[in-house]
């Protein structure tokens, strides 16, 4: 496991460096064109990137959680979810319990964020809480824990910021180029540009168009590999790949889209929030591997839950000799046996109504509603604005104190 993390870090470092070079190139040529000095552009690009990085490092998780409109919960709010997260915290060997957020949205999705394993958060939608049984929830949380444990969360934040910087630079440059071109022309005629200027202009335009696309490709290359690794880790933590597989199946079958997701935050989620149904297996521009393929790999894990088993399953599904897990992580792997389903999962779905009730109760509570149970069994939800001291039960007419 540890070897895998290290090998991933090297590969990611190379990719991030590649994106950095791209950013500097964009800055250099923009500077060359607009201020007649590449260094000026370089400095500008570095300043933009540096400021965004500082913001991402210190406030990134808060911003993302704010954007997703998640609400933080404590153990008493929802013991079941808290317990499952704590279980996986123990299984993954994380030292600190991550914060837990619930997003009030019927879509099925989840994500992890944070600066490092000691300051991390997992967020999951209320739809997910309603639809998944305990084994499936464990699988999903295991996947998110793996993102935290493998330090994907920080890498995702850094690459997202790099990508964002490149996109912002290119965007402003295009605006200036098209709408502010006049002022520039006057200046360049006095300095006497000629064909050199034209070449720089051409390179700058090509870079402006290509850089965001290339950066996005790099971003996807990083995130896809990490999705596989997170799946493999989840299977290893839970010793039960079927849990995550059947959770992904439910996620894939759901049609509702997450309202609060956007393009920049998409790679964080366990499944792509913007996916189209029936997406082709070779869809390169996707941040996530196709769900059907991830499910098939998890279901093909015969005989064990180790990385070696996942790698073998991956090769079997892809009919290729190249695996997805780094060699160094496989050589030290010990056989890991699978476990059986828990009773809750085996009985089918006995308590999904109860689960839906629990989840909605948590959401009411998080919105500061108070709950009073009337003597006739009716549950009254009192909004925070309600100031009177008594309330009449609409069902039986009894007067209840608030």
């Amino acid at each position: 496991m540890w070897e895998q993390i290290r090998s991933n870090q090297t590969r990611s470092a190379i990719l991030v460096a590649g994106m950095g070079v791209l950013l500097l190139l964009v800055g250099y040529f923009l500077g060359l064109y607009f201020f007649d000095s590449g260094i000026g552009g370089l400095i500008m690009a570095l300043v933009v990137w540096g400021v965004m990085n500082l913001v991402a490092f210190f406030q990134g998780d808060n911003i993302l959680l704010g954007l997703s409109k998640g609400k933080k919960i404590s153990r008493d709010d929802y013991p079941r979810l808290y317990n499952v997260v704590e279980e996986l915290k123990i299984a993954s060997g994380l030292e600190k319990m991550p914060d837990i957020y619930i997003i009030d949205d019927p879509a099925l999705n989840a994500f992890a964020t944070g600066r490092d394993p000691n300051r991390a958060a997992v967020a999951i939608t209320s739809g997910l809480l309603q639809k998944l049984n305990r084994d499936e929830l464990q699988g999903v949380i295991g996947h998110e824990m793996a993102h935290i444990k493998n330090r994907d969360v920080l890498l995702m934040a850094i690459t997202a910021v790099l990508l964002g910087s490149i996109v912002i630079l290119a965007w402003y440059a295009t605006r200036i180029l098209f709408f502010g071109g006049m002022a520039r022309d006057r200046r360049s005629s006095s300095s006497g540009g000629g064909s050199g200027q034209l070449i720089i202009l051409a390179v700058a335009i090509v870079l402006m168009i290509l850089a965001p696309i290339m950066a996005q490709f790099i971003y996807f290359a990083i995130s896809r590999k990490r999705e596989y690794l997170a799946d493999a880790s989840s299977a290893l933590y839970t010793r039960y790949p079927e849990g995550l597989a059947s959770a992904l199946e439910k996620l894939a079958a759901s049609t509702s889209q997450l309202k609060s997701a956007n393009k920049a935050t998409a790679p964080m989620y366990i499944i792509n929030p913007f996916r189209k149904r029936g997406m082709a297996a070779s869809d390169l521009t996707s941040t996530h591997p196709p769900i059907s393929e991830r499910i098939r790999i998890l279901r093909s894990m015969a005989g064990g839950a180790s990385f070696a088993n996942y790698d073998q399953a991956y090769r079997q599904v892809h009919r290729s000799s190249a695996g997805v897990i780094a060699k160094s992580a496989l050589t030290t792997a010990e056989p890991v046996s699978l476990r059986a389903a828990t009773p809750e999962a085996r009985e089918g779905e006995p308590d999904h109504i109860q689960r839906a009730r629990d989840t909605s109760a948590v959401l009411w509570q998080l919105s500061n509603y108070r709950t009073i149970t009337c003597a006739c069994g009716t549950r009254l939800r009192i909004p925070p604005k309600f100031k009177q001291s008594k309330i009449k039960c609409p069902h039986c007419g009894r007067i209840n104190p608030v």
Partner: protein
Amino acid sequence: MAWYFIVGIVVVLIIIFIVTYNRLVRLRNQVRNAWAQIDVQLKRRYDLVPNLIETVKGYMKHERETLEAVTKARNLAQQAASSGAGERAKVEGELSSALARLLAVVERYPDLKANQNFLALQEELTSTENKIGFSRQFYNDSVLRYNNQTQVFPSNLVASVTGFKASEFFEVTVAEERKAPTVSFT
């Protein structure tokens, strides 16, 4: 010239020794941490069991034997709390299977399954069982890596000189422990 050579070799050997020693210490600390986590969860279970018995007692008039078995297993486990990993795993395994039998019998008591107090306890107990399982998993992984380090050359030399001993695994020997028991209505 030869002097520099010998001094150089000695320095390199000392560095290797220090690095290996530090790695062994790190791994041993991880084993101890992992063990502390198991311990926390096992203690949590000792605390939960009396509450559970108290709650279900009123409902389960005909299950005295099952309840007594759980209480007995819990007390035995608590008495063995200071013994080694191997011994402890055995008695804790007994407690796990006694509890699993009790929770399986619960299916026959619909009144009990409607009791909020019991449901909360059941959630806690299920989760504690899972946490025991997961912390055991992590502990055994840590022990494996630590033991490997104390056995492979050359770190076994450092380990034997500085007194690092192999740790014991926490293996639950009771069969069917993580599988839920089957209920027969006879």
